[in-house]
């Protein structure tokens, strides 16, 4: 019996995860894949007989849809500007907080982390007021120093930047915690050795800290990249993709087509395009990381 338990124990431990993963991730992904080849709409949902397979039509149509292409452009815009900023800012804040010895720095850890745990709807209410064209605090402050109003959410490009600012504010906290945890895992002896060799603070940071954080940086960049490719909440609650589809992301495009217009097949095709992009980008990142670790 004991032998049996020893052998079976691992399966029992991973079974809940495996079952949950299969039921709620793998099966739905496969179902979505099937749906993406059909013309499923609301009547199809009620009565499966009225669904018919239409091959790659959804894919060819979605890839030619100017709104979808615009959504891809917007998403890339978010990723290319947002992801490096998130990594840079959360890393620098983590370093600064870690350097400080006073108690106040512990309080700042909480301050920076708070936005990450705040409900997005509450965030949206507050930020809508900050960005409001008539009552907004930002425009009020600009006017105080004699600058003109900025169309925060009403001009397509600026609206994208405004949403990036909001998302930055929201996502720095979590990554900062990851970096702080990694920072505290670096043995003190490395710094002592560096100090004996006469390294100054900057040299310690660039030659000891950053290389030792390589895996943390890699982890944060992959998760942030995936998260930002699925950029959804911010435009959903703040702008609904407007003005002129200027803030529409791919994830929001999928949502609107699926749940607003009932084009489930079309939305599923769009989500598979996004899925493939995310997998491809992640694989490239993994490969780059592998090359890097081979070199050192």
């Amino acid at each position, binding site marked *: 019996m004991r032998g*049996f338990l020893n*052998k*079976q124990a691992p*399966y*029992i431990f991973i*079974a*809940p995860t495996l*079952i*949950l993963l299969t*039921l709620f991730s793998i099966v739905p992904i496969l179902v979505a894949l099937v749906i993406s080849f059909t013309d499923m709409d*609301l*009547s199809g*949902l*009620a*009565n499966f007989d009225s669904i018919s397979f239409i091959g790659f039509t959804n894919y060819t149509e979605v890839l030619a849809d100017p709104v979808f292409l615009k959504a891809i452009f917007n998403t890339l815009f978010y990723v290319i500007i947002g992801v490096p900023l998130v990594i840079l800012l959360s890393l620098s804040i983590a370093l600064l907080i870690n350097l400080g010895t006073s108690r106040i720095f512990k309080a700042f850890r909480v301050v920076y982390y708070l936005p990450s745990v705040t409900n997005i709807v509450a965030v949206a209410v507050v930020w809508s007021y900050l960005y*409001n*064209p*008539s*009552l*907004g605090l930002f425009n009020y402050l600009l006017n105080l120093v004699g600058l003109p109003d900025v*169309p925060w*959410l*009403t001009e397509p490009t600026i609206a994208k930047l405004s949403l990036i600012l909001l998302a930055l504010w929201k996502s720095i906290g979590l990554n900062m915690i990851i970096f702080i945890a990694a920072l505290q895992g670096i043995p003190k002896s490395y710094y002592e050795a560096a100090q004996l060799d006469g390294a100054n603070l900057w040299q310690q940071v660039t030659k000891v800290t950053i290389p030792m954080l390589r895996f943390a940086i890699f982890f944060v960049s992959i998760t942030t990249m995936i998260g930002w490719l699925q950029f959804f909440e911010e435009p959903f609650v703040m702008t609904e993709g*407007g*003005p*002129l*589809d200027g803030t529409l992301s791919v994830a929001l495009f999928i949502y609107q087509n699926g*749940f*607003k*217009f*009932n084009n489930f097949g079309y939305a599923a095709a769009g989500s598979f395009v996004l899925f493939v992009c995310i997998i491809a980008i992640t694989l490239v990142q993994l490969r780059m990381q592998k090359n890097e670790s081979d070199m050192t």
Partner: protein
Amino acid sequence: MKKNIKVMTAILLSVGLLAGCGTNNNTSGGTDTGNGTSNEKVTLNVWGMGEEAKTLPKLADEFTKENPNITVKVQALPWNQGHEKMLTAVASKKGPDVIQMGTSWIPEFAEAGVLTDLTPYLEQYPELKPENFYPGAVESAKYGDKYVGSPWYVETRVLYYRTDLLKEAGFNAAPATWDELSDAAKKLAARGDGKYGISIDPKEQSLGFMFSRQNGAQWFTEDGKPNFSDPKFVEAVEYLNSFFQNGSAPKDLGLDIIPAFKEGILPMFISGPWMIKLIQDQAPEIDGKWAMAVLPKKENNISLLGGSNLSIFEYSKNKDAAAKFIAYMSKPETQIKWMEETSSLPAATAAWENDMLKNDPNYKVIGDQLNAAQPMPVITEWSPISENYLKHFEVIYRNNVDVKKEMESFNNDATKMMK
């Protein structure tokens, strides 16, 4: 043997998991069988939408008093989540017994066949008969030859305006024609910086269609093709766009309509009857300084007829009790009570004989406008078409592009959707 044990472990775990998922379903109680006429206990699940649904339990309690064997459970859903909830209900074929349907939702859900045809219930419950209601409201509840919803309340769009500010601008009465409306808006906007003439809500799907209908545009050709690049349609959109281009309507104000109306920033707007109560509650300071009027006229002044219907979900097991509940809600007395609670307007014409509706000047305006109000077309493609219109209109008012060209592109999109 070992393999068997592995399989068994997996099965046991999955069963436990599924059981965990399943418990919730059993408590919803909507699966009791039986119908309202017998003495069996029945629980009706009713999905109401929006703010008003929170008042619905009051009426439901009175219904239960008359029918002790039927308990009613009301779930109030916000309008913007209702659609998604309905999709889930359709997919799982499990959901409410009675649903409040916005008239614009009827075509898609009726097409999917999830709304019960009420025709068989008309004999037993004469309150549901179509002739009791405004014809426009009945039209919006008919899909093909099926009668899939019973009109519950109606709404139509009218003009709200600040009498004091219009008087200052030289208007003793509400603008009665398109030209007067445009003229009044321009004069009001000329009061100074940060003041406007009228609010044209660019997120309101029906506005462009409503104005084009007033201009005599036919939305569809005789063989049923979209006709949105028709000169009359283009002219109406140009008219709406002119408010934005000459500065009498703000593009992005960021203020709610009621504070803006109170401060006189937006002294005119077009909206439905629910605004009466909101203005009275939130802006008592301007009591007596505002009024309502029927829409200004071009070739006609036909407004939008909207509202909500009550439908029976096809997968309901208590259809008879559900019909009884809807019949109760359709009685003129109940409709008047409902109006007193929520200021929604009765869809039953008999309820309009009530003194309150006859004598109140605000309700009188709405009553007048209801005589010139028609619903939007009851076709499944209408909802995507009107969403698409908003996108094209946004390009027009923001970038001030050529209206004719943009409407041609809209017409192409609509033609594709109608296929």
